[in-house]
């Protein structure tokens, strides 16, 4: 150690050469894993605040414009939303099982489960894309072609204000759009991780990236669990 003094190199470099995944500034793998985990939890905290701003706007306008929000909500496809919810929950299951597989060192199973997770993610995005396309066709997308007269006519007793209906759809697209963006990022992360898993980079001792990616994925799932009732289930009473 003394002959390394003044060279600027850490005496722990030798230790780290045995464990290539251990980065030089950490003392041991445990510290590295704890840091990664804490970092992901705090990051998810920031994501809660990020979505929180939009949820706040949603809550304010829903309280003020309830009939328009209810009508807009009823116009969304309940089937698509429910299927998507099931798809995401399945994907959370597969990712949790993937973490377990990595803990047990089962590489083939791990890769299959990661691929399944990504598959479910892509399914979700596909269904969402179909919904958006459908809404765009019905002129419910908040673009310059927005037109909610069909909703106004279908709900004559409510005497809806089309402008307020647009606010519902604006928030719907903003919320689901930002959520979809997070899903795309998640799928991207998982594709990298799946590649690394296929190459055998993960062992029972070191599978931190899978754990923290799994945390992120669960968070994206939970956001949807909130979005689904708030957007799709506002007022689905029969006869409403």
């Amino acid at each position: 150690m003394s002959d390394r003094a003044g060279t600027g190199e850490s005496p722990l470099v030798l230790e780290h050469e045995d464990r290539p995944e251990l980065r030089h500034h950490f003392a041991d793998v445990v510290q590295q894993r704890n840091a990664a985990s804490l970092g992901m939890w705090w990051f998810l905290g920031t994501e809660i605040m990020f979505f929180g701003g939009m949820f706040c706007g949603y809550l304010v306008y829903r309280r003020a414009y309830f009939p328009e929000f209810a009508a807009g909500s009823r116009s969304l496809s309940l089937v698509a939303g429910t299927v998507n919810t099931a798809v995401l929950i399945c994907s959370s299951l597969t990712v949790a099982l993937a973490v377990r597989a990595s803990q047990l060192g089962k590489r083939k199973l791990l890769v299959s489960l990661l691929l399944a997770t990504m598959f479910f993610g892509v399914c979700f995005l596909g269904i969402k894309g179909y919904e958006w396309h459908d809404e765009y066709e019905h002129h419910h997308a908040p673009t310059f072609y927005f037109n909610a007269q069909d909703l106004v006519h279908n709900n004559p007793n409510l005497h809806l204000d089309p402008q307020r209906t647009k606010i519902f759809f604006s928030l719907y697209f903003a919320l689901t759009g930002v959520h979809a963006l997070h899903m795309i990022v998640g799928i991207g992360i998982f594709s990298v991780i799946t590649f690394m898993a296929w190459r055998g980079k993960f062992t029972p001792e070191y599978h931190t990236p899978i754990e923290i990616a799994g945390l992120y994925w669960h968070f994206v799932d939970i956001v949807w669990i909130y979005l689904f009732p708030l957007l799709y289930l506002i007022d689905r009473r029969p006869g409403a």
Partner: protein
Amino acid sequence: MATAAVTTERKNYLNAEYGIRSWLLTTDHKRIALLYLLSITFFFFVGGFFALLIRLELLTPAGDLMTADMYNKAFTMHGQIMVFFFLIPSIPAVLGNFLIPMMIGAKDLAFPRINLLSWYIYVAAGLLYLYCLATGGVDTGWTFYTPYSSLFSNTHVVEAGLAIFIVGFSSILTGLNFVVTVHRMRAPGMTWSRLPLFVWSHYATSIIMLLGTPIIAITLLLVVLERALNLGIFDPSRGGDPVLFQHLFWFYSHPAVYIMILPSMAVISEIVPCFSRKRVFGYTFVAASSIAIAAIGFLVWAHHMFVAGISLYSALVFSFLSFMVAIPSAVKVFNWTATMYKGSISFSTPMLYAFGFIGLFTIGGLTGLFLATLGVDVHVHDTYFVIAHFHYVMVGGAVMGYLGGIHFWWPKISGRMYPEAWGRLAAVIVFLGFNLTFFPQFIVGYLGMPRRYWQYPPEFQVYNVLSTAGASILAVGYLLPMVYLLWSLRYGKLAPDNPWQATGLEWKTTSPPPTFNFEETPVVTWEAYEYETMPMPDEVTLER
């Protein structure tokens, strides 16, 4: 001088590797801190240039130097650049990045690559903002109030909004790094109660960065979407609520001011004990007050909206809470003052900046109480009184702390001593120039001069002229350190490891430090600020 030959041979983080790639792809927190130093200094001068334009225009009551639109862009971009591209990153990204790992005995931050990423995000955002500037700028005021920003302004609101959206992520990642580092990377024996107060303050700052910044991100994103897609969320003629924007905006932007001041307080908490040779009075209370400021700071945002149309009762609640948040700040000032009692005070440059901070932050903070007082705020809201208040805390407070910190840690960062006499001179010039610039603004604000006015009634002119005169002096005070700090890099005396005989782990390593900070991970068995065990600094280091 005899040691010169030996010390320049030694490997440190500056000469460990050469070449532009070794800097642009570094993961060394100290090099990243210097990258940040360069970029935020650049933006400080761009923002300062706009301040110059403002003060020149305001020399005369008529709008005779530039068009009204140009003036509106000048104050908008002055505010946006200074807040988002200078003040918010400044101390955390430069001094925090450089010092926190060393102060806790770690080799680097928890996530060095994310640290580098945060700098690139800052640069990308800065380039987008410069693009916005170059293609015509933005004129919404730094506050982006709707529906002006979402519907009526004809300027580059989208680019500016996106740039600030992006730079927010730089802030979030910095905060993330600091929080995880403080939790997980402390050396053996470095318990929470032995942490330097610099670390406590930055920890509190990081909490605010993490929890608050996403809100401004989503708020600006909604404004951008509103403009791009004509949504109508903030358009009253389509059922939108422009005041909702204000709530969302200020929910971040008030805690943001604590992001700007807490790091500066962090610096003062290090300088004052060192140049009083005495531990900080009431360590626990100073540490706790940082957390209290962060927590209560999230609860006061609508004091920016007392005349915006909020209900009477919510105004009462926010006024009350705004008084509450003043208490922990006052506690800090009292504790620093008490630290000097029966100390052994020296008037070094960092200490002069600390004196300036304590005085000017006191005035700035007290005038904040005027704004928290409902009946008075109705009169002074949106006048120069507010401008004077926040410049006292931001410039008289945050910037003086920043400069004091740069000088205090300059020997550690660069391995050189700055010229002490010039340092003291600059500190005094900054203090005098600052007061001449901003004190008259309290008066002209109370007289009724509104903010963001390109032209004004003639009876306000004397105060504006005084203010501009002060600004020119202040500019000199800011240019001087640029010159002599650069000079010192080549011609300054070589710095010993601990020129100030300060406590703190960063002073136990060489100046400049080696890439991995410490030869061996330190094991801490002593409390913070044990100045009674430290020798007096060599008198020579304090003289020219």
